[in-house]
């Protein structure tokens, strides 16, 4: 019974973490789909959003969950500017191969991390909200429950937020004209131009939207994690693993990939040891590359397109 309890608790924690991972992966996947380059500054953009949330909390007492509505628009603008003034000019230079353009995003990430170190030092920071210790127990709701499970309020709120954002994104991409333009551009950019889509504007918008989504993820993470300038690299890697696991450019793939990664990391922590989560992450990455080169998306696609 205890073993089952530990397993279920680990599973629940993994899914909660996976929900946030999915959001991070979605942001990267959106940019990947439209731009055809991997944004290796993704985690650093999240770090910037987390500093915004941190200072809003520390200086003005703004709750991190409210900060989503400030940090996301701010990062949207930052993303648009990066796309317009840094990435577009490099893409125009035909002698730079696309696989090298990705290096530019590494550079952007390094600059953001260095700036954060200069301005905010390497200190560990956190946002101690006063409801941080609230935890719900299964036995509070079901007295005779044979097993005990717990969920902290913070994780639950962050998870619900990430689901709401995912749903909003899905609605936006499937129901609005701008959303359809984004999907059309990522499926065939030349055909998109022929249909009157201003592809450059769609690219800038998508980079902004991807940045806004990872910014939201950052605000959802900050009550749960410590913040420091170098934190971005780890999350860039996580986003990268999710994108590979999910299949480049696939939204559903990113969601499932995020959940799988979350559960897998949680399992490695429980059954192998706390420090082993990054190793598990790496193992999943290699496994995805070797056994499922097209990612989860290739499985779904072969079913949907009947090929």
């Amino acid at each position, binding site marked *: 019974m205890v073993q089952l309890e530990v397993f279920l608790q680990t599973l629940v924690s993994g899914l909660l973490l996976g929900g946030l991972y999915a959001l991070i992966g979605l942001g990267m996947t959106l940019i990947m789909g439209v731009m055809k380059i991997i944004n290796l500054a993704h985690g650093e953009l999240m770090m910037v959003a987390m500093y915004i949330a941190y200072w809003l909390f520390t200086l003005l007492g703004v709750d991190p969950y409210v900060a989503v509505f400030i940090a996301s628009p701010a990062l949207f603008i930052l993303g648009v500017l990066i796309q317009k003034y840094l990435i577009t000019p490099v893409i125009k230079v035909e002698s730079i191969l696309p696989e090298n353009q990705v290096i530019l995003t590494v550079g952007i990430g390094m600059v953001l991390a260095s700036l954060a170190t200069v301005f905010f030092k390497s200190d560990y920071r956190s946002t101690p909200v006063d409801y941080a210790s609230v935890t719900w127990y299964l036995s509070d709701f079901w007295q005779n429950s044979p097993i005990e499970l717990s969920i902290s309020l913070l994780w639950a709120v962050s998870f619900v937020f990430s689901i709401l954002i995912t749903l909003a994104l899905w609605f936006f991409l499937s129901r609005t*004209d701008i959303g*359809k333009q984004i999907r059309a551009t990522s499926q065939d950019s030349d*055909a998109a*131009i*022929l*249909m*009157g889509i201003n592809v450059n504007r769609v690219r800038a918008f998508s980079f902004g939207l991807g940045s806004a989504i990872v910014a939201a993820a950052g605000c959802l993470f900050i009550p749960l994690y410590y913040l420091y300038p170098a934190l971005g690299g780890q999350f860039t890697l996580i986003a990268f693993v999710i994108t590979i696991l999910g299949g480049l450019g696939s939204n559903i793939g990113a969601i499932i990939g995020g959940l799988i990664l979350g559960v897998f990391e949680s399992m490695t922590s429980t059954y192998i040891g706390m420090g082993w989560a990054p190793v598990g992450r790496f193992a999943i990455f290699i496994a995805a590359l070797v056994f499922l080169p097209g990612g989860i998306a290739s499985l779904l696609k072969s079913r949907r397109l009947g090929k």
Partner: protein
Amino acid sequence: MLEVKNIDVFYGDLQVIFDVSFGVNKGEVVALIGANGAGKSTILRTISGLVHPVRGDIVFDGQTINKLHNYSLIELGLVHVPEARRLFPEMTVEENLDIGSLRGQAKKQRKVNKDKIFELFPRLLERRRQLAGTLSGGEQQMLAIGRGLMSLPKLMMLDEPSLGLAPILVKEVFRVIEQVRSEGMTVLIVEQNVKQTLAIADRAYVLENGKLVMSGKAADLANDEHVRAAYLGV
């Protein structure tokens, strides 16, 4: 309506179009024929602004368009239905039609136009929620033409609409072209199916190795020795 004036087009250092000039008048069906690699698609891509001519001008409805943004041409009434359909495979039939009508008047009349397209291609109506990538070749071509028509074009450029279709579907495609032309559409068509194309076209141009080598009434070209030997296999 459309005037192409002395264009030279390059891919990198390689010149593929040499001093090509031709025109399309309102209400005409004009065909551009030529062997594989002659440069037919390149000419259409140049008109659409996907590639830029190094020399020469392209005038549409009195306006020089080769300096305009390529995405704005559709609003002027110029639409290009590209070679190999180029649908958005993971979007539904209906979403593909929506993408055809993103701007101006076409967007306002989206609903009405969609019904017209479904009337023209009843098979698309049955499959409106199906992903474009799962349609048969014939259905995909219908959708590609339908998506083009959604933009309410004045001039429609079709690049090999009969490519890879069974004879009965080829017939269907040509029937549709005749129908839209009878409703006042101007058409510039690129085809390998020379016989049937010359049968519906008013005029035609023959392109060889990036140069225009012949032009004239479609009926006359269909009887020309050289055309018959090179393209009609008789």
